């Protein structure tokens, strides 16, 4: 088929469109997050010692790290959703967030780790349950980011998929923080780190085929 014929078809197929705006996508993610938050709060009670936990620094470090990673993942995703986007722009956000969270975690581990408690703090049954819950909470946001990314035109589907996975896993972890009874830094670095890695890794592996255009 000649180029002229293609152009004829495309012109005849033309319909008005509304230019994509990042703030509309962000608003959509916010609505999805809010709905999920309401549903989770309505269906389960947070950790019993929440009031006490909120007086300690570990709870807030955990919360801030998860929020930071979710926000950085979302920022990276939005930076990657246009054809002219460069992968480096998204990568900087993601690496920065992961680096800061890890650094804070390492410092806190150094301050508070007690060798005798290591085996207890790394309880793998509890840890795997945490990973599972984070992924479960991440799922709605992952689907929402997938819809947004499919409608956009990411120039690097794999990087966009990774950012979507990181953002949604970060969001899942941020939600789960209110229910998770563990504040030990080693536990959090290991199991939350695994949950974030699994979320980002699965998205990196599975989503790109849905994001090609």
């Amino acid at each position: 088929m000649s180029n002229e014929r293609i152009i004829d078809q495309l012109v005849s197929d033309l319909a008005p469109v509304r230019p994509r705006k990042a703030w509309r996508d962000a608003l959509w993610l916010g609505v999805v997050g809010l709905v999920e938050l309401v549903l989770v709060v309505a269906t389960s009670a947070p950790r019993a010692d929440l009031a006490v936990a909120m007086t300690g620094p570990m709870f807030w470090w955990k919360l801030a790290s998860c929020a930071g990673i979710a926000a950085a993942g979302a920022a990276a995703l939005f930076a990657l959703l246009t054809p002219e986007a460069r992968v480096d722009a998204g990568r900087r956000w993601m690496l920065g967030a992961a680096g800061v969270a890890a650094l804070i975690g390492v410092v806190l581990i150094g301050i508070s780790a007690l060798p005798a408690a290591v085996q207890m703090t790394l309880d793998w049954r509890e840890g795997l349950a945490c990973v599972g819950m984070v992924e479960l909470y991440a799922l709605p946001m992952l689907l929402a980011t997938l819809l947004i990314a499919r409608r956009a035109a990411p120039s690097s589907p794999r990087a966009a998929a990774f950012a979507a996975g990181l953002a949604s896993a970060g969001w899942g972890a941020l939600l789960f923080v209110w229910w998770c009874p563990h504040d030990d830094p080693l536990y959090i670095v290991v199991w939350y780190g695994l949950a974030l890695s699994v979320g980002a890794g699965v998205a990196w592996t599975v989503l790109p085929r849905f994001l090609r255009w």
Partner: protein
Amino acid sequence: MATEVWARLMIAAQGGDKAAYRLLLDEVQVWLARYYRRRLPPDLVDDVVQEALIAVHTKRHTWDPARPFGPWLAGIARYKWIDRLRNLKATRAEELPDSLSVGDHGDSILSATVLADLLATLKPAQSDVIRLVKLEGRSIEEAAALTGQSPALVKVNIHRGLARLTKRVEGYANDDE
């Protein structure tokens, strides 16, 4: 400046103006053909131009009039180019188009020069077998006999070399414009 005119045409096209859209696609088509002639074998150019035109059409809502049109269009062109290079990499030696090793006009010469530069960045064992099999059209066995590598090693070196080339090309693409 052409891209400023194109931006105005695209704004009209996003509103449904078919005359403006035709004008835009006619001009973009010429630009795309020139873009791909510098980067691909001649017989692939029309196909990729058409893929890029379709991408411009299906993704026209992703251009924000608040941003310049040129980088957006170049991004689409680059994405489709890299996509085609990936497909080429996945294609087996005997299925590659003959035009990779022929053609004596300027664009082909330019492509060959770029390719030679890229090949020079590989290990000799990889660039030798890619040159023999992919560019000169020799069989795996012939390449093995000429280079002293086993047929299996020839295949491995072609695969690794092409993977490395693709990575480098993507790197150039990111620095392009």
